[in-house]
């Protein structure tokens, strides 16, 4: 449609564009610039070239931070997808009981990360918590999971899975809604049992949904901060120091603007890489489902999405 005047579209877009550029695009550029300086917020900034990046790579444990973040994310994403899909298949049924279970599981996604993290800090506590009590009942020594270098990160991942499973379940439920019932009935008539109906009819149709859940929860877990800050503060040692927490430490504990900026730039490029991966997966899935389209156009047709 024609705008009323040449400026009208820009007047309507101006507030949004200005805010987005100021708070989201410009900061990345500024961070890239600041990363070339050494500045502690008090004394004047000093140009140091790529020294901040070199320091992060050699002494700042950049690789460790990246690997821990990736490990945490892989655990959370795979756990969330498996649990979310299993629960979606389970509660994709009519009736008040299943509606209640859906709401219960999803409620964790609605509650603050702060509440969830504090709650699980207590549950996992070796002395006062339920896990410690259960261990004692089983005759084991008190085991402070969160104080154990090897187990602290997986423990945080369990909390992440508990929090995000409801999200995955709800998205999978939306995906299940678009599976044409006629297709399932046809498969049943052909003698396919529940497992084969799932394996050969439902699962292939849920491919795009699974890709969507995987990429969104991957990006979410890469940004994990609250669980780390509240439950472990990056410890014990540096065993739970993830990307965003490392940036936070650089700026607020070490007052090192240059290194925090350098870490931000690396973090941003990792996220871009993940977004590229997301796009790639989408494209591949889309062309795959294009090829599968004839099978989808079942006689009675799915509910339109």
């Amino acid at each position, binding site marked *: 449609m024609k705008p009323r005047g040449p400026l009208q579209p*820009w007047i309507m877009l101006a507030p949004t564009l200005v805010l*987005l550029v100021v708070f989201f695009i410009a900061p990345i550029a*500024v*961070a890239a610039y600041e990363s070339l300086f050494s500045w502690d917020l008090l004394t004047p900034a000093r140009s140091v070239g790529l020294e901040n990046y070199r320091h992060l790579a050699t002494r700042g444990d950049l690789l460790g931070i990246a690997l821990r973040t990736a490990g945490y994310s892989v655990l959370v994403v795979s756990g969330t997808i498996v649990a979310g899909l299993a629960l979606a298949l389970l509660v994709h*049924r009519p009736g008040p009981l299943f509606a209640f279970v859906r709401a219960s599981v999803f409620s964790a996604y609605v509650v*603050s990360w702060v509440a969830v993290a504090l709650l699980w800090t*207590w549950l996992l506590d070796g002395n006062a918590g339920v896990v410690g009590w259960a261990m004692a009942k089983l005759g084991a020594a008190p085991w402070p999971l969160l104080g154990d270098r090897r187990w602290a990160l997986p423990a945080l991942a369990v909390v992440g899975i508990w929090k995000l499973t409801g*999200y995955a379940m709800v998205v999978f439920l939306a995906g299940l809604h678009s599976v044409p019932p006629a297709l399932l009935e046809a498969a049943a008539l052909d003698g396919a049992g529940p497992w084969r109906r799932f394996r050969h009819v439902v699962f292939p149709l849920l491919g795009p949904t699974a890709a969507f859940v995987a990429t969104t929860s991957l990006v979410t877990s890469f*940004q994990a901060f609250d669980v780390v800050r509240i439950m472990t503060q990056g410890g014990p040692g540096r065993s739970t120091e993830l990307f965003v927490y490392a940036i936070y430490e650089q700026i607020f504990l070490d007052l090192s603007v240059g290194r925090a900026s350098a870490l931000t730039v690396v973090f941003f490029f990792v996220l871009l890489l993940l977004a590229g991966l997301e796009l790639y997966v989408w494209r591949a899935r889309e062309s795959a489902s294009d090829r599968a389209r004839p099978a989808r156009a079942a006689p009675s047709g799915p509910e339109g999405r």
Partner: protein
Amino acid sequence: MKEGRVARSVAAAAASAAAVVWLLPYAWMVATSLKRLRDIAASPASLWPRPVDASAYGEVFAAMPVARYTLVTAFVAAAIAALQVALALPAGYALAKLRFAGRRFAFGVVLACLLVPAQATFVVVFLGFARVGLVDSMTALVLPFAASALGTFLVRQAILAVPDEIIEAARMDGASEWTIVYRVLGPMVRPTLVSLVLVSFVFHYNDYFWPLVMTTGDRVRTLPLGVALLREQGTGMRWPVIMAGNVVLSLPVLALFAVSQRHLMRAVGGAR
């Protein structure tokens, strides 16, 4: 698909077990908030506090101004949600319906911002606010989220589905473009706006990260920050107090969830 009786009972049992995994922690949270510290050490898993002791709630209210924190938090979340709707409508309309040079560029800016989380901008934004003396202000909590890339995108998608004829008819009737945006299109894309408001309000009400990095004192402290601080105060873990804070923090959101359950689940499940 019809399902056998046995299959349905098995599914019901398994689903109930799943519900326990998600509900039991809440039950423990409430039970712990009503216990005395020494009772927790003796039997952490019991769900019936004996004796029931609500003094932890008193301590929460004594340790922080709960009412003020709640008001600040609700105000911040509501202001963000309202601004996002107010700005996304005209922007979404321009991107969906108006033809002009630079539209692809403008849309590109919105899409690009979908890729940038606040976690990648906070260092620079914090230093910027510090330079102009706005750290610890309502502005620092609200303004960066007043425009939402995702919200703009979703509103644009919704307006794309509105037929041009409706807008043309409104123009013929002499409606201004602002009337068209807020009075004609607004009501027509209501489901999208409700989703945006709910998801945005809940997210910012719960948010810990941004208020943590943008505030240094008590002036505009939000409830999640206050509750997290209960853990850091004093010596040792006063679990009843922390869990009482948790209940105070979660209850309003769970109440909102109870009344808007279907909408919220559809907003999250269908948001693609």
